């Protein structure tokens, strides 16, 4: 069976949605200097989900916060759809974060005083969309996550899995092109975690670029590529292969 994201590999690659060039981040200085990242190069193309793995302290989360413009590198560049966000004005950066980048964190970060639909609509409203239009889009995003029944519930009236799916709806609303997920399956049971990964995968198959930071091999396996970090450097990565190379027979014929 043809899988939607397989096409990506063999077509000439489209321009990357995210490009990290020689990215470095040093905390402190002198004797207390800590090199969180040391010259990372990474490109993520439309349709591609890249998992980042590595021991704690290897720089995984730093990479994600820099890629999302939530922190500033001490060296190198971060290009989001061709714009260097390390030299962008605050205003440009804020607009990019509202429109192009979706974030999913382990602790959901939903606003407790807002309903699910209001949480999802928030980034659109902040970006100047009318409340009515924002609600329509928010309801569509919840529908996509199979959660329309939660629209008017508050976060404390939902399970962890539901909260995380609402957080993903918020991260994806308004057709963001870059999705950054930091241990999005953290506190979830394995079935719910898998459904969260399925949503990220589906959005990338539909054309978004995604980075998934995780320490769970089973969830990293949903990615097209897995990048291994150690001590702030990329030490290895997997490349995509065709399933037929592993299991003969049935896989190819379906």
């Amino acid at each position: 069976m043809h899988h939607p994201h397989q096409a990506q590999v063999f077509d000439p690659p489209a321009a990357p949605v995210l490009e990290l060039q020689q990215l470095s981040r040093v905390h402190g200085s002198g004797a207390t200097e800590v090199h969180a990242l040391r010259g990372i190069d990474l490109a993520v193309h439309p349709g591609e989900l890249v998992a980042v793995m590595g021991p704690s302290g290897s720089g995984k989360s730093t990479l994600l916060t820099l890629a999302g413009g939530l922190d500033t590198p001490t060296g190198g560049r971060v290009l989001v759809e061709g714009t260097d966000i390390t030299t962008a004005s605050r205003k440009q950066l804020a607009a990019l974060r509202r429109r192009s980048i979706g974030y999913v964190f382990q602790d959901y970060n939903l606003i407790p005083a807002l309903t699910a639909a209001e949480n999802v609509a928030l980034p659109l409203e902040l970006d100047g969309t009318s409340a009515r239009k924002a609600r329509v889009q928010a309801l569509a995003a919840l529908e996509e996550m199979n959660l329309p029944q939660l629209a008017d519930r508050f976060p404390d009236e939902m399970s962890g899995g539901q909260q995380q799916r609402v957080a993903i709806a918020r991260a994806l609303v308004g057709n963001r092109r870059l999705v950054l997920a930091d241990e999005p399956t953290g506190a979830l049971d394995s079935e719910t975690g898998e459904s969260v990964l399925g949503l990220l995968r589906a959005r990338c198959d539909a054309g978004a670029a995604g980075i998934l930071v995780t320490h769970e091999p089973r969830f990293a396996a949903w990615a097209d590529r897995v990048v291994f970090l150690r001590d702030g450097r990329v030490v290895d990565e997997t490349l995509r292969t065709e399933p037929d190379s592993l299991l003969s027979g049935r896989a190819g014929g379906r």
Partner: protein
Amino acid sequence: MSIRHGLLALLERGPRYGSQLRTEFESRTGSTWPLNVGQVYTTLARLERDGLVSPDGTDEAGHTLYAITEDGRTELRAWYERPVERTNPPRDELAIKLAMAIGAPGVDIRAVIQAQRAATIRAMQDYTRLKAQALTAIESGQARERDDVAWLLVLEQLIFQTEAEARWLDHSESRLVRLSVLAERGAPTAPPQAAPTAAPTTAPARPAAAPRAARSRRG
């Protein structure tokens, strides 16, 4: 023995001939454990010898059919009820390799671990992609649903196995890092020449070796 019982399980659904059994075994398990027709006939001959199957005429095309006997059904029932035996852990090349790599001259065990980790995760990526296909096939509700569910379970078993391997590799690496940190802290008085790379003929190497041996006896 899995092929034996696998064939009995298929024959419980009705008489079948050899290559038919092979096809059905493989579609259940997604060709994960390919069978050749020779193996199927050898196994059928043994099952017949043990009175668990018997020849059951031929079909229109002249294939010899086999049917499960009453003893065969009893054996099959007992197989389902009895947990798989674990008296001898299967030989694991990776475990043997890491065991040999500890202290092997010129071997960077972290590099060995990383090369394996990348290969293991890549296998998981492949299995996961196949699993997504199996799920799609099941959701689309096509005729072969029962085979697809069987295939899904086999794939998920492969995923869990590779996951266990990846976790063990992570654990081994951090275990080794921690132990090497301890070893360095434990020998603060050792002169720099006592490092393992020092020439073996230098005298200072010997006093450093003694406390190391003592520590390992205590541990």
